[in-house]
Every structure is written in C-alpha cells, then in structure tokens.
C-alpha cells in the first residue's frame, strides 16, 4: 500500500495515497466541517463548507474532493479558511428560508450546527424571502424547498444508493430546484418511497410526516435491529420515544448500506389493522378474551389423545429462529404432528442458496428467474439496478409481468430459460436470482450455472432460509385434521388458505392482528410485532440477523417461543 506524508494543522500524518484531504484528516482524528459530504455518498464538493488552505495552491480547496499528495501542507482552521467558511454559511442562510425557530429540524440540522460552530450570531445578508413551493404530494414525507440548500445529497442517494434516478435539478444558479423526473410533483414521479433521500437530508427540507415534531435526537432512543419484512434482512435503526416507534431508518453499516424500502421504513407505522392483545376462546358465537392458562388448556383438551396424525401445525416463514426451533421441537418432536410452513421455501427446486447483496456489486450479468425482486425483495431489486448502472447485463425469465422487465437487456419466457442460462455462461461473474414461479424443469436447466454463478433465493418467508434448513414445507392441508395450529405472526392468510384451514375441526390461530383467519378460529393467541421481540433470523444469504425489541409488547402479549413452550407443557 503506497502511502504519502502530509501535514495537517502542523501534525505529521502518513496516509494512504489517493485518499482525500477530508479522509486523511478524519483518519488522524481531525474534524473538518462538511455539509454536502455524506459518508455513504460520492463527494461532489458542492457546498464549499470544507474549504481548507493547501500550501502552494492558488485558492482554497474543498477537502472532500482534493486528493492528498506527498509533502502537502494543509491548514483546516486558518483565518483564511474560517473566513471563507463563514462566508459560505452566510450565503447559504441568505438564500432561502432558514429561520430555525419554526423549523422541524431545529436541533438536528447540520446547517444550524455549523452556524453554531462558527459563531454566526447574525446574518450579514438579508433574506430575500422568496416563497418556494412545498411538495406534499407524497404519502410518507414532504419536500419543503424553502429549507433546501441544494447540497444534492438526496439526488446522490436516489441515484447512487437506491439506483432509482428520480431526482435531479432543474435550472441553474439561484433558480436551481430539486425536481423529480421531468419536473412533476414528487407523488406523481417514479419515486418508490424508499426514503433514502429523507434519511440523508441535512436540513428540514425533507420531513417525515409521521415523526415530525415528535422529538429530536436528544429526546429519542435508537435500537439497532433488522427489518423482518422480507428475507433480505436490512439493518435498521428503530427510533422510539416513550414506548412508541417514531420512525425506522436504515443502518449504514449493514449490508443494505442504509437503504430500506417503503415496506420496511414507512408501512409499519401506517398499519391500521386491529391488534390482538389477549388470548381468546370461542364461546357461543363470539371470541371471548381469556387468560393464557385457559386458552392453552382449551387447546390441550382438544389435542390430547388425538395422536399426532390428527394434529397439524403450520408456521409463517416470518417467524424468528427460536420460534421456528421451538415450533419444530413441540409439534414435530413432542406431538408428532404434521408440520409445515405457510410459504414455499424453494426447497423443491434443489438449487444453491446463499448469494448475498454484495455479490451484485461485482456481477456482470444478472439473471432474474421466476420472481420479481422489485415487488417482493425491493432492496435487492435496487441493488440489481445499481449493478446495471455499473454495466451489468440483466436477463429476465418470466411468464408474468415483472418490475425488472423494463430494465432487462433480454426477456425470455419460462420455457426458454436454457437460452438465458447460455448467455449467463458467457459472462464472468453471473448472479442468479430465482423465485417461486420457477418450476422443477426450469430449475434443472438453471442448475447448469452451479459453481459459476452466485444464487440468490427470493424466499417468500422472511426466515425461509431457516425454514428450509429445518425441512419445513409448504403443504397446508386440513383434510381430516382435528386440531390445526397456525402461527401467522404479523401476517395474514389468503382467503383460500383460510377456507382450507377451516376444514379442521378445531382451529388455533396465533397472530398479532385480527384478520379473516382469526375470525374463523376457535382459539386466538396474540403475537408480538417484529419491533417488540428479541431474537434472530436467517437472511436469504444465510446471515444471522439480530432482531431487537425497540418497544415493549402490549401487556399480556408473550414471545412466540414462550407461548409454544407453555403449550408444550399443557399438551
């Protein structure tokens, strides 16, 4: 590794050649102020806040883009640099509405923090009070152009991280505005509401509707956890205050690199389904709240002496590892019941598993077969789009409309999977993404890429990987079943499955929300939500992802594994 010797603020530093002044300073523990810079985004030197004095350079240079070289001498807080920085801040404050006293972001705003740091106790230039539009056409967050400093972090997050390319600027100079697509309202644009731009905005220009004015960083707590919406297993930071979830943010250090999708970031906070908070037993025509002991005894009374053959139990692939283990231990081990999972585990396809998001970063050919990551595993879909931006080829094999089809270089019907395989064989680092619409015959053809390609499985269940390891299969069949136990977690059953389940003489549904399935049940057991439980699950690439409870479950709601253990005692 080539190194160069430089001096920053008189301090002798040895740093890797090719890095920027900002990076070298950071490694040496020196703090150069920044604004448009964000660690997860490419540097563009737009805001000029990081200007530093570099010896033998004619003008001040932006530390975020200026590469270091042998013998370089840098002053980060020289009078000249500080003067320029203050001037830049004065200009930023004079441009739009940066009155902090009525801004949602006040307290966490990066522009405000810099003004405090450089002692801006008044403004040199009067505000023009130009009235800018506020775009509230998106469901989950608002764009207030009045607070925008045009740092372009949102644009870079949209194009470089989410690879969605919705955002850009229109006009130039003082008239510059962030805009979507060909300047349409954000709500009518190609925006997918992944919210990555919201997370990187340094000011109050992008505002989350749900958590606005609910508390600043000093008031809230953060819990590092994992989204359980799909098998990608995105790292999250769950922001809570006084036992309530305010919002969910992406973890920059996790494999998803800060990116989440609408289902993980926003939708959990908009769930209006009715929560189940107590065990219930059918008495007469209705379900009546009862104690855990009574509910478990009611199940045991029906199940005892039935023999395993007449008992069946199915679990959602969303369940955490210890829930799945306990489920198998109780129902397969103790009761000897028929067990299965509510979603397909792709085990029948006999294809490799374990491909990861990072494999896409080096892929030159992506083969999407029998599934649509942009519909079911969105962050994986965004990562495929990133690979395409870097020049990878996309082959889509599907008989159904597919969200990735518009981006594909070639589209094949399922019957022609062999042709797509042939093309992939000619590439250097192919990645295969396969889902539940792939049949066994197609899978056998796809298997030709084993050894050459990385295989990413679109498990329908979040913990499909572990369900598959445990040998659970998707075979819901209630024919002749006396006692049927269904663990749904926060999910629901399709109508057909509810009808099938109701064929059982006695139906137990363990779920977080009221649904057609719980309405049809004889006993209902309450389940916690993902942010109310502790444990882990196995992601589609076989990684053990940690789930942490950010808030307590409602009183009376027990962890799923604990309920299963208590049920085992009762049986």
């Amino acid at each position, binding site marked *: 590794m080539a190194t160069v010797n430089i001096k920053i603020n008189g301090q002798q530093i040895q740093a890797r050649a090719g890095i920027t002044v900002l990076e070298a300073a950071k490694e040496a523990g020196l703090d150069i102020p920044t604004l448009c810079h964000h660690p997860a985004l490419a540097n563009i030197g737009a805001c000029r806040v990081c200007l530093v004095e570099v010896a033998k350079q004619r003008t001040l240079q932006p530390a975020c883009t200026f590469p270091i070289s042998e013998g370089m001498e840098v002053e980060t807080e020289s009078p000249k640099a500080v003067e320029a920085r203050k001037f830049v801040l004065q200009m930023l404050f004079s441009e739009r*509405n940066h*009155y*902090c*006293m*009525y*801004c949602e972001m*006040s*307290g966490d705003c990066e522009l*405000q923090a810099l*003004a*405090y740091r450089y*002692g801006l*106790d*008044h*403004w040199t230039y*009067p*505000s023009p*009070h130009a*009235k800018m539009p506020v775009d509230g056409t998106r469901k989950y967050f608002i764009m207030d152009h009045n607070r925008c400093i045009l740092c372009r972090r949102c644009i870079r997050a949209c194009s470089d991280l989410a690879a969605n390319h919705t955002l850009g600027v229109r006009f130039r100079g003082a008239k510059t505005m962030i805009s979507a697509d060909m300047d349409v309202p954000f709500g009518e644009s190609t925006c997918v509401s992944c919210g990555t731009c919201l997370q990187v905005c340094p000011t109050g220009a992008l505002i989350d509707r749900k958590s606005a004015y609910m508390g600043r960083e000093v008031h809230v707590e953060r819990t590092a956890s994992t989204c359980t919406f799909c098998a990608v297993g995105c790292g999250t930071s769950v922001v809570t205050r006084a036992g309530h979830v305010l919002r969910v943010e992406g973890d920059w250090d996790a494999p998803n690199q800060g990116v989440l999708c609408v289902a993980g970031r926003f939708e959990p906070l908009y769930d209006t389904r009715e929560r189940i908070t107590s065990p219930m037993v059918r008495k007469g025509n209705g379900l009546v709240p009862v104690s855990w002991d009574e509910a478990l005894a009611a199940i045991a009374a029906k199940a005892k002496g039935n023999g395993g053959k007449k008992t069946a139990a199915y679990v959602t692939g969303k369940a955490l590892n210890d829930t799945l283990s306990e489920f198998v231990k109780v129902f397969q081990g103790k009761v000897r019941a028929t067990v299965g999972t509510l979603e397909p585990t792709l085990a029948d396809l006999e294809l490799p598993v374990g491909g990861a998001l990072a494999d896409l970063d080096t892929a030159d050919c992506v083969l999407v077969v029998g599934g649509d990551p942009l519909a079911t595993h969105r962050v994986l879909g965004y990562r495929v789009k990133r690979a395409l931006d870097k020049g990878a080829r996309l082959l889509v094999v599907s008989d159904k409309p597919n969200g990735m089809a518009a981006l594909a270089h070639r589209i094949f019907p399922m019957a022609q999977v062999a042709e797509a395989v042939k093309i992939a064989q000619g590439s250097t680092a192919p990645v295969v993404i396969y889902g539940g619409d792939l049949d066994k015959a197609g899978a056998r053809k796809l298997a030709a890429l084993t050894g050459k390609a990385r295989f990413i499985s679109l498990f329908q269940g979040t913990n499909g990987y572990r369900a598959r390891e445990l040998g659970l299969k998707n075979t819901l069949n209630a024919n002749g079943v006396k006692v049927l136990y269904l663990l749904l977690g926060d999910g629901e059953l399709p109508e057909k499955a509810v009808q099938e389940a109701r064929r059982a003489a006695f139906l137990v549904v363990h779920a977080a929300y009221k649904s057609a399935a719980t309405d049809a049940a004889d006993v209902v057991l309450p389940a916690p939500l993902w942010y109310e439980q502790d444990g882990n699950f196995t992601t589609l690439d076989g990684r053990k992802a940690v789930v942490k409870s950010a808030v307590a479950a409602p009183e009376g709601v027990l962890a799923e594994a604990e309920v299963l253990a208590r049920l085992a005692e009762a049986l």
Partner: protein
Amino acid sequence: MAKVKVATDWLAACAGCHMSVLDMDERLVQLLDKIELTSTPITDLKHPPKEGVTVGILTGAVSNTTNIEVVKQMRERCQILIALGDCAVFGGIVSMRNFFDMDEALKRAYVETESTVDGQIPCSEELGRPVRVCAVNQVVKVDIHIPGCPPSPDVIYYALAELLEGRVPVLTGDNLKYD
C-alpha cells in the same frame, strides 16, 4: 461608581424576550446594583432619556414605520445597541409575513380571522404603516447580537455581566441558540 444606564424597548415582538429578561430572577436584582433601567416597555418611562444611556436593548422585528422610529431613537440615544432575540437579530417569526403580499396579510389578520366580526383594516394616520419585516441591523448598526427564541436568561445575564466587566460578549457553545 455611577450606575450604568440601560434602556430597553420592544418592536414587533411577543414579549417573550422581555419575559426572559425578567426570568434572570434574583440575578436581575443583583444587576440592579450596577445598572439603572431607565426605560422599558414594562416600566413607566417608555422612551430612553434624551441625555442617553450606555446600553440600549431592542427585542422584536422591525415591521412598521413606528418600529423604525423607535429603532432610530434608541440608536441615537445609546452607545451600545443590543439586538435581543431571533426577531431583532434575524426578523424571526414576524418575518413569515414577508412570504405573503401585504394586503393579503392585513386582510387575513383584520378581516378573515375566525373570531373577527365585521372586521376592517385599520387606516388611521396616527398608526404606523406596515413595512417589509426586517432585522434591526437592516435599519441601524447593531453592536451585539443575541439570538434565541427567546434567548435564555443565562445568556442575557452573561452578555450584561461581560459588558459590565468591559468585555464584548462572544456567544459560544450553548449560549448560541436560534430556537
């Protein structure tokens, strides 16, 4: 030693900054050993004395022609002028009006407000005319700026104590806040 004369006045303001002055509590009593409050909006004498004061403190934004007169008189009659609070320093909450047409703002305030019956826009010649809202330093030279909405009693005390010691107060750390 003679007491240092201090005068205060408010412009377009919510009075919160003056409340914050009063919130210095017993420290205000201590200060009164060294300073004399000649005129304030909350005492009998409303205008700074003709012979002048050492320190003039203005809160609130400049929003009409009367405010401009008050600002100019204070500047003429004090040696050190302090703009206290976000409205005096930046224009503050009051400057939200600038984002609207003046007629629109007047109509909203005097005619359209939900509790108003048969409202009309005041037009007496004795009243000041509304102007585009601005900070005090857009009208006269300001020597010391203390932002905050309102500034905390601590920072007000700090600034006055520094002045009494003959130093120019410099706001750093938690003393510099915009909200």
